[in-house]
């Protein structure tokens, strides 16, 4: 009879516990706290869902600037007054100098200055960064010093909201164009 009784009892049936007055209070309190906990968890989940799904516009970060690559290629293929193309000049000089810098200012500042917060065009060396190898920008007289925090190609920096175009020049040097978006 005893065995049958136990078998038929439900898991949450309070009669399976011996009840003193203190026990009843403790048990009642557990129920109240459990209910509050469930409601709090649900409210947090609902507010998180509402927050993350509020703006249903997909950001266009990955597509926006890829057309800039075309300008970069055309810039590097442009003939300077000396008859040499910009790419060869930069490769030879190891940096933007003279006509290559003037053309870069005209092309990139002329076309993109209003659309971007920061534009840096120049030559970078491969070097040791804080965590891994990174491209260390060489200062030039046209675009100044590269801000290492705006370089999306640096693994140690991570996502920066910027677009970078990199063209190898040889001898561990790279031509680099960085376009930092406005916030």
């Amino acid at each position, binding site marked *: 009879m005893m065995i049958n009784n136990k078998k038929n009892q*439900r898991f*949450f*049936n*309070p*009669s399976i516990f011996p009840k003193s007055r203190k026990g009843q209070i403790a048990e009642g309190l557990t*129920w109240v706290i459990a*209910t509050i906990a*469930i*409601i709090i968890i*649900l409210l947090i*989940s*609902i507010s998180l*869902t*509402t927050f*993350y*799904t509020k703006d*249903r*516009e*997909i950001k*266009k970060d990955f*597509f*926006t600037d*890829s*057309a*800039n690559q*075309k*300008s970069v*290629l*055309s*810039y*590097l*293929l*442009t*003939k300077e007054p000396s008859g040499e193309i910009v790419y060869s000049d930069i490769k030879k000089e190891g940096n933007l100098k003279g006509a290559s810098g003037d053309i870069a200012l005209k*092309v990139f500042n002329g*076309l*993109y200055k209003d*659309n971007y917060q920061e534009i840096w065009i120049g030559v970078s060396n491969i070097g040791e960064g804080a965590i891994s190898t990174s491209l260390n920008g060489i200062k030039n007289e046209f675009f100044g010093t590269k801000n290492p925090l705006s370089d999306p190609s640096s693994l140690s920096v991570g996502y920066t909201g910027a677009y970078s175009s990199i063209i190898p020049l040889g001898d561990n040097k790279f031509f680099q164009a960085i376009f930092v978006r406005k916030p």
Partner: protein
Amino acid sequence: MKNKIIFDKEGSETTITIYWFAILIIVAVAIVYMISSAYGKPYDVRGIEADILANNIADCISEGGYLREGTLTDSSFKANFLKQCKLNFKVEESFAKGNGEYYVEVIAYDFDTNKRTNSDISYGNPALRQYCELKGKTLPACTQKNIYLLDSQQNKYGVTIVAVVNKADKNV
């Protein structure tokens, strides 16, 4: 006395059953609300669509840093623009409205003198162009890209590509 105990037992069981049903219903309603708020409305992808459209046109008119031959400087390119650039402006019938849901404009100018060449191209619904200056969730998405290009004779061009996508019914 015995009857009272049985009555109390049954009462507490009923209370707990009702409580669990109430909790179950609250949790179910919350889950349904969260799912419907996450998936109930469409994502607005018009901005990306306009960007992809402009990028495709940029790919169509340039190749390896040079202006592709037979494009902006060729009069037959303008007539067959959609076919040449492999673009399709058709939309599902249920979303098709008026004169079309897309508009593209390609303006080329001499980069040194800023003088426009006679190779401007516009296609689609021109009424959408006016919304590029305005901002609003239900207004068409507009994107503008500027690129610098050379032709094989080292002539320098600035090209402005404007792409507008309406499709508000489908995305908003």
